[in-house]
């Protein structure tokens, strides 16, 4: 080390909690990992499984960038501890395309230019997949309302709605 000053006291005054082995099915593949109970599903995906397509925008469930599908339902993965999802099926943005063919929502987002910087996009697409599965949204107003947990700071909202409508029509 090139610096000096603070010295490390002997012995731990606190210890990180012990890691717990869990098994998740992520994008159709079984993943065994060992995580501390304080590790969120978001950090487990990004830091442990290197699935960085799922984004961290606030870590407080406020922005929706971390949205993934767990057992088919959309959730904020930053508000979910990984150990709570033992045995669950998790789908991230990396798991939507099949054999190189984009998911209809992914294609629709490109067709309608439903993003600019791309950082909210994974969450928007996973959230839209969950929305379509819920079957509640019919009108544009209902899509707007039920997609309002996913913030897009670039302001692509009208294009996001158009993309979801295209995917709905084709699904």
């Amino acid at each position, binding site marked *: 080390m090139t610096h000096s000053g603070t010295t490390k006291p002997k012995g731990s005054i606190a210890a990180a909690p012990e890691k717990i082995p869990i098994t998740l099915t992520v994008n159709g593949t079984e993943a065994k990992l060992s995580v501390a109970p304080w590790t969120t599903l978001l950090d487990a995906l990004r830091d442990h499984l290197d699935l960085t397509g799922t984004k961290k925008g606030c*870590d407080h469930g406020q922005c929706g960038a971390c949205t993934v599908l767990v057992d088919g339902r959309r959730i904020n993965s930053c508000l979910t501890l990984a150990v709570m999802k033992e045995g669950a099926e998790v789908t991230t943005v990396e798991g939507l395309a099949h054999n190189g063919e*984009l998911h209809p929502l992914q294609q629709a987002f490109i067709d309608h230019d439903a993003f*600019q910087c*791309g950082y909210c996009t994974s969450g928007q697409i996973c959230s839209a997949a969950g929305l379509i599965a819920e079957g509640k949204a019919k009108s544009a107003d209902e899509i707007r309302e039920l997609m*309002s947990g996913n913030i897009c700071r670039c*302001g692509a909202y009208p294009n996001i*709605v158009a993309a979801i409508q295209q995917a709905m029509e084709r699904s």
Partner: protein
Amino acid sequence: MASYIGSATSRVDGRAKVTGEAKYAGEFNVPGLVHGYVVDSIIPKGRIVRIDASGALGIAGVIDVLTHSNRPPMADKDDAYKDEVAPEKGSPYRPLYDDRIHFTGQPIALVLAEDWETARVAASQVRIEYQKEAHVTDLHAERTRAYAVDVPEKPRGDAERAFASAAISHAAEYSIPTEHHNPMELFASTAIWENGQLTVYDKTQGVQNVQQYLCKVFNLQPNAVRVMSPYMGGGFGAGLRPQYQVVLTVLAANALKRPVRVMLTRAQMYALGYRPASIERLALGANSGGTLDSMQHEAIAVTSQFEEFARNDTGWGNLLYKSPNAKFEHKLVKLDLPTSCDMRAPGAATGVYALECAMDELAIALKTDPVQLRLQCYSDRHQGEDLPYTSKQLRECYRQGADAFGWSKRNAEPRSMRDGSELVGWGMASGVWEALQVPATVRIVLTANGHAEVATAASDIGTGTYTIMAQVAADMLGLPIDNISVKLGDSTLPQCPVEGGSWIASSVCNAIANTARAVRGDLLELAKATQDSPLSGAGVDDVALIDGKIVSKRDAGRAVSIASAMQSGKAERITREEINQPSEDKSHARNVHSAIFAEVKVDEEIGIIRVTRVVKAVAAGRILNPKTAHSQVMGGVVWGIGMALHEETLYDHRFGRVMNANIAEYHVPVNADIHDIEVIFVDEPDEMVNPLGIKGLGEIGIVGVAAAIANAVYHATGKRVRDLPITLDKVIEFA
């Protein structure tokens, strides 16, 4: 082959973004990565007396805690910390430098641990003893301390006397609160030392700006440092200057000789730059014929105690309206806050808001339609410089925007239009920005297989730079767009300034044209060397590259394929690099213009305001890609809606601290807030502004939108709210 320029082209980086393959600064997971977590100041001003890190260091997995007293060396001169876009005056903030506290949220320790969660919990165990000093953070309370900064707008005539004798006049004060950019991506950096080389993945709008800054701050050789930002999750101005996390990340990597990542929290990002709060005073005097005799605009904005950030809010009226008498003054108040910074259309988003609300109020006083007043005052010359414009299709913006909106059906009387239980209001405003250019260099490598790599050190912050560059290069080289690969966001690529000010499209695309011309010249020489060349005697500007061929412009039958020219010349590749310098011609003003029409519906009982329709007509020279251009302007309109109705950084001035430092209580527009937005691009050929006629679109989207909405709220309710944001508590009194 059809032209790619001007055609609605899907983003070439679209697939990477919808599949999650696009990697951002905090996503480079490398073996042995150390995670940093910032401990920041809870006081706005004073000194650090003592830092007790023992509680953090005792936690298993914690590697070290860096503070000002144990950090590795860094530069001790201001010049080292002055980045490409630093304010001219003042001393830039130096992260983790000494015991001085300049603002709440200032980093004072960096906890380094084997994993992020451990670093976070350990950060909570660092004990800091402060010595507090008295602070000031309230612009409105400190406005009497405002001092004028030099501004280029000269006064004309005697504005005060003309105002006093005007037939009809309007004077009022408008205010805009502090706003934060809140890009979706958290600010993050990853620093990796490998074989004496430092690679830094950084969230930045300017990789070379950060690279040069790091070299100066850490006394590193330029060829030892590479800064990368292939994708950026939103900038909006927040990433123009190097942010403190990149300094902390490199400090830690230097200390530990291990790869390090530091990612800020959303709350910590409220201690970065921000759009300064401002108070804007407008005084307009008109004669009875309805033209301006006097125009005065004074602004007071926030900067820090240690740097003087100023973006003139007040000159915009000179670009829009004739007035024989005019006076402008931009003032600053220094507060115990971080230095303010650029945020979408700095100076214009705020200044034009106030100006265009004042014009609406003047139109009401004159009993004149607001569009009509603007046409009566319309200026074909820049009033301050007395220069004609390279182009100014603003009249056409008013006309096409009004037609698309249905403005002629407006009843001018406030509270006269209804939709069920909602009051309907229609308002309009003008927008203006500058068509800027900066020196930029582009390298093209054309290979014999008909593929070209086009590279510059610009960043694509979501604006579509990858895509427009591919379009322009494909056209200029006569190749299919799929054969073009664009490289950006790497400091080792040819020189390019920060991505901001709406200058990147015109700068890099004209540089592509210059470089492509050089490539064409090389190809022509190869083609002329072939036996019985049909192009013998032709000069570089006598031929074009079309459909993979070098073609005579005079006789399309005279052509040589690029492949055969390169093959016969035994050239495997042609590499060229050319710069584009901005024109030095000062004979014309270079600006981009727009007209905005907005409809609001206001619930009469509870005051909820919805922006149900916006039409934005833009005259911005040549539109390279209507698809991404539409998104850029639409996004600016969404920002204008946020500025008008939602956005406000709230301080508790007793503690000098932001109260809503999160993305739930700092309100930004969500999907349900946004309804119909129509973007119109008015045809505006302009070969004078630059050879390709590109003016840029990044800023114009937001300018004037908040004014159009404020004017519509007045029209709906009869209530004039001059202090943004227009929240329902401010309009509820009318009911």
